[in-house]
């Protein structure tokens, strides 16, 4: 009886019902989610006293000045940015044919198999995968072994001798780090891309062919523009995940610092919370810039 009364009360007052449902998640979202983010941002406007090593709680841009004027810090940002762009491009290039196959051609079991195959690696521990990759890429690892068996050691050595990205072995070079990043974030590119491609009706492709477009023209004029929102969504994932990651660069790759590692070091051993906070603002700014550029190129026009 009382249930019925309450049900009727809310049925007649849909706004009240909506409030009842929305207030708890909004409280969580507002305080915990955004609140902590703003607390973090606020920290970046404090500075650390060089003598006492205490945080000085007065608004200042000194920390940001330190971030943009010290060449070492700028190097870290540029290094991370280049890696993020390279990883995003590679993910997009690898994901496009796979996502196209999943969305347009695979049916039934094959489709399920592909979706599970793409997501399976995400169900395993992240750390296990990173350390596994370090072994795979090591000087005595299976990749070096297979290359040697195939007589391609020379090729591998040429790659590792490349200035800037090379190193003594794959596991201690930027090439290796790049491979691990691409492996880790590929599902985040494939899934939104496949979702976008699935939404393109088959009749649009038929219409394009019907009007005289060869398959390559249909792909360029119809499929790609309609897949772009999915590619944009996927690239935001791969881009931001690379910008913020600190485990992959510390386990695999050359010794240079990345943004994530810098945040980790500054807020931990160095105890410089303001600089750590300022570093964590960098990816946010870069992603905003990225989204602006994507929009300028019409990435979201088809939404």
């Amino acid at each position: 009886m009382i249930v019925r009364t309450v049900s009727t009360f809310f049925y007649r007052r849909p706004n009240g019902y909506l409030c009842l449902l929305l207030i708890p998640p909004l409280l969580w979202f507002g305080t915990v989610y955004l609140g902590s983010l703003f607390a973090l941002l606020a920290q970046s406007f404090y500075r650390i006293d060089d003598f006492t090593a205490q945080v000085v709680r007065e608004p200042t841009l000194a920390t940001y000045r330190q971030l943009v004027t010290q060449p070492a810090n700028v190097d870290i940002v540029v290094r991370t940015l280049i890696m993020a762009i390279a990883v995003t491009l590679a993910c997009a290039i690898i994901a496009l044919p796979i996502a196209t196959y999943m969305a347009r051609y695979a049916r039934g079991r094959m489709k399920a198999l592909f979706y599970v195959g793409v997501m399976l690696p995400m169900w395993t521990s992240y750390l296990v995968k990173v350390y596994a990759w370090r072994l795979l890429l090591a000087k005595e690892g299976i990749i070096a072994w297979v290359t040697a068996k195939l007589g391609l050691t020379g090729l591998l050595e040429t790659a590792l001798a490349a200035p800037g990205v090379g190193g003594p072995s794959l596991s201690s070079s930027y090439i290796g780090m790049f491979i691990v990043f691409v492996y880790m974030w590929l599902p985040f590119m494939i899934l939104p891309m496949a979702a976008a491609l699935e939404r393109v009706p088959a009749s649009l492709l038929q219409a394009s062919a019907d009007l005289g477009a060869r398959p390559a023209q249909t792909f360029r004029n119809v499929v790609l523009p309609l897949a772009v929102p999915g590619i944009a969504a996927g690239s935001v994932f791969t881009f931001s995940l690379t910008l913020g990651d600190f485990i992959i660069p510390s386990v695999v790759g050359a010794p240079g610092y990345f943004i994530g590692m810098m945040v980790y070091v500054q807020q931990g051993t160095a105890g410089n919370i303001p600089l750590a906070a300022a570093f964590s603002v960098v990816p946010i700014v870069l992603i905003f810039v990225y989204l602006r550029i994507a929009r300028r190129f019409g990435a979201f026009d088809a939404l």
Partner: protein
Amino acid sequence: MTAAIEFRDVSRLFGDVRAVDDVSFAIEPGEFFAVLGPSGSGKTSCLRLVAGFDAPDRGQVLLDGQDVSAVPPYDRNVNTVFQDYALFPHMTVLENVAYGPRVRGVNAATRARSAREMLDLVQLGSQGGRRPAQLSGGQRQRVALARALINHPKVLLLDEPLGALDLKLREEMQIELKSLQRRLGITFVYVTHDQGEALSMADRIAVFNKGRIDQLAAPRELYIRPRTAFVARFVGGANVAESALANIISGSEQPFAIRAENVAIQSEAVPAPPNTVSAPGSVLAVQYHGAASRWQVKLDAGEVWSALITEEKARALNGLTVGARVRLSWPRDAAVFLSASGGSS
């Protein structure tokens, strides 16, 4: 004269299903040809074979005398108006219409000019800058038409093009499509499940049933002399007596059809008029349509038949209501004798 489209013993199988089953027919240039059938009868499969989205498993599809069975859609001089219009959502109306010339390498100024001409032809001259999502269903339909016509195809395929429009708009578009076809002189192949649409627009109609053509004829012929029970029911909405029922009514096993407007209705107490055939039954329902009313009568022999009674005659039937005992009767020569279904013509 070479046929615009010819099917020679064409079959298309999907697993065990014969979507198109050994079909042969020819369409003359400039003809308005309707492909009529219920869903799953193979009419859309035929259209896909003409457009080139699909290839026959057996037989040949010829366009203008050339075997095109292996030619992809982008190399056929055929264009399609899709059921869902299939307009590109990321392009403006003008870009949609100009798409054909664009992929064929026509320069930007020329293709924009011909796209504008096409939009004028379908009376959408002022809408070129809009996106398809901003248009009404009828306008989208016209854009799809303009986009298909810009390539000057020899054959225009229309796949249930009016299916999504409301009744009034459908009737307007029917008249417009027909006059457009006359003006342009293009062969139209019009796929529909609506027999009224096919009858009112087409020069000839192919009635599809289970992957085969039951009858291919001009609309009047199809309506007056259906060859099979399927055609009689589907096209004419006629009452059909299959052999068992025919035997009870007329004493012969030859199946026949009687159109509803040829059936008269009397109270069972009134004797049947001379020179008629009759069958007793009871009234199941009466649907009033204004100028006429449709009486559903359950025959004592089992089937439900219907009689289309003009308002004038209906007045004489005062007192007959649902459940009343009646007699259906029709002139002896109104019966159309039928052959078995499924023969390809």
